[in-house]
């Protein structure tokens, strides 16, 4: 497991010099999950930062909050914000840079490599612990997870508790950073879309039954959207939300805004919400898995986005989140793009 002592030193330095406003990283949680996002402003608090396999959160989401905060201030503090990122998270920053949502100078990136493993899956861990709360999770030198609970320690092979997305991860070290901790262990998963196989083998009828049962559970809490670093639109198509209203917006503009999706958590509305959101993430989702992790009803949302990621790769040769100079997938085309959908 990578050690973050150098990163902490860096963090201390930039906070002391005042070159960075505050740093978003991982600290100790309290609610039974060992890690939680923390925001450190003072150099003496830097020791609160931790790094272990429970650091599952994608902190890039908080860059959106930062941008909104600056927009509300009359004289915003333009210094960059420091942020701890894993490989997957760093690709989210690349996508935000591609879309010019943030500037490179807005972030000071402290990258951490996942080295040979990744993060644990909360559901798998819960099952393993029969509902007991984990107090600490560490990765030992033999690539085994060591989980400490109230009643003692449990060990498991990395594969048993690793998040599915980590097994398929094409970049388990940050692709963009200012400082890096840990070794860059290059991995080429032999089944980059292995988790999709089971669903892909179902017939259309079976797939409908599967998704209907799953999406009927949805209560439209919008946690999936709120956790996604790429869902930053002030005017969300799949909702009545329109935060882009100002005093100058005319009554006509407000009146003519179409309600594509109703608020009711009915089958039809739930389907449209999730499918359209997945479409809007095609070529943008970097599979941080947050949508699925935060869902209180355990809807396997990751499959929707992963499928579109696979199509982006297979049809258009598009790799998401590696090259900030590339245009967004849906806003460009090449002459060689496949045309077999034209009959």
């Amino acid at each position, binding site marked *: 497991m990578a050690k973050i002592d150098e990163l902490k030193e860096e963090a201390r330095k930039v906070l002391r010099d005042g070159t960075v406003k505050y740093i978003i990283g991982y600290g100790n949680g309290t609610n039974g999950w060992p890690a939680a996002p923390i925001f450190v402003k003072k150099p003496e608090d830097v020791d609160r930062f931790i790094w272990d396999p429970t650091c599952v959160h994608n902190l890039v989401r908080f860059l959106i909050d930062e941008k909104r905060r600056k927009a509300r201030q009359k004289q915003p503090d333009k210094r960059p914000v420091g942020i701890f990122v894993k490989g997957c998270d760093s690709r989210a920053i690349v996508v935000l840079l591609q879309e010019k949502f943030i500037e490179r100078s807005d972030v000071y990136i402290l990258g951490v490599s996942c080295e040979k493993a990744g993060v644990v899956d909360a559901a798998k861990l819960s099952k393993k612990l029969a509902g007991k709360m984990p107090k600490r999770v560490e990765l030992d030198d033999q690539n085994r997870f060591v989980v400490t609970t109230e009643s003692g320690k449990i060990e498991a092979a990395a594969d048993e508790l690793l998040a599915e997305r980590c097994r398929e991860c094409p970049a388990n070290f940050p692709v963009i950073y200012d400082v890096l901790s840990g070794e860059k262990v290059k991995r080429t998963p032999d089944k980059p879309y292995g988790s999709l196989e089971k669903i892909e083998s179902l017939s259309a009828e079976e797939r409908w039954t599967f998704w209907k049962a799953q999406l009927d559970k949805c209560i439209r809490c919008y946690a999936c959207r709120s956790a996604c670093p790429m869902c930053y639109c002030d005017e969300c198509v799949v909702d009545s939300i329109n935060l882009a209203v100002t005093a100058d917006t005319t009554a006509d503009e*407000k009146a003519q805004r179409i309600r594509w999706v109703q608020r009711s958590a009915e089958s039809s509305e739930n389907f449209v919400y999730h499918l359209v959101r997945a479409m809007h993430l095609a070529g943008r989702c970097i599979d941080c898995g947050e949508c699925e992790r935060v869902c209180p009803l355990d809807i396997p949302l990751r499959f929707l986005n992963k499928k579109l990621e696979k199509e982006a790769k297979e049809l258009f040769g598009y790799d998401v989140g590696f090259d900030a100079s590339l245009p967004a997938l849906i806003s460009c085309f090449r002459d060689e793009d496949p045309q077999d959908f034209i009959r």
Partner: protein
Amino acid sequence: METSVYTPQLAKIIQTKDEVVGPRAIKTFRTQFVNGGRLDFRCGQCAMLSVFGKGESMISISSSPLVKDYLQFSILRTGRVTAALHDMEAGDTIGIRGPYGNGFPIEEWRGKNLVFIGGGIGLAPLWSVVQTALLRKREFGALSLIYGARTSKDIVFKDELEELKDKMPVHLSIDVAEPDWKDFVGFVPTNVLDKKPSPTNTIAITCGPPIMIKFVIKNLKDLKFEDEQIYTTVENKMKCGIGKCGRCNIGFHYVCKDGPVYSWAELKKLPQEY
């Protein structure tokens, strides 16, 4: 027969009048219930107007409770429901449920002078008190009105204000000078300082944009009005109108049920979150 408090009564629009045209359009509607419906209310109370298919909007009733033939509402065109209302004509059907809110405590004001201070569409909630005070003139002291709008075109109740000048002092203002404008030029709070209403045995009732209310209250305090002598109505986003959906919650109040009328003495005790 049990009936839900959320179900509106059906009413027909019997008359519409364009008060202001253009981007900040304001229209006055008079409605009559169909099917024998009725709604008894006090000054300052509001009703939820339904445009079926679009939604509901909480609007203060601007006619006097002493007028039984119709209910009058003046509505600013600002969003989905109000735009749909503006597109309606006499003969169209809407829904009305209410009355909601605490209303103005006009019985406590008997024998006192009343100064009405309004800005823009803010005259509409005050209008029911103005009309009622005129109809019960002997019960109240001296009445006067200080009212202003952005431009002369944005003034509401233009005809009624002309008639009103025969019955009480009416001090109008607009924000920026216009060639034919003879009255005060400036913001309403500044006009208040200019006209110097006396606080002796007087109640000041003000309604308008939040920023105007803030400065009107400040200036009234400078003129030595006590907190209990200043009344205003608070606006907040509302959906249920009966203090259950949580939207208009400020402090331990629901504006739809415990307000929208507040004296400054009461309002300053609530979190300033409106």
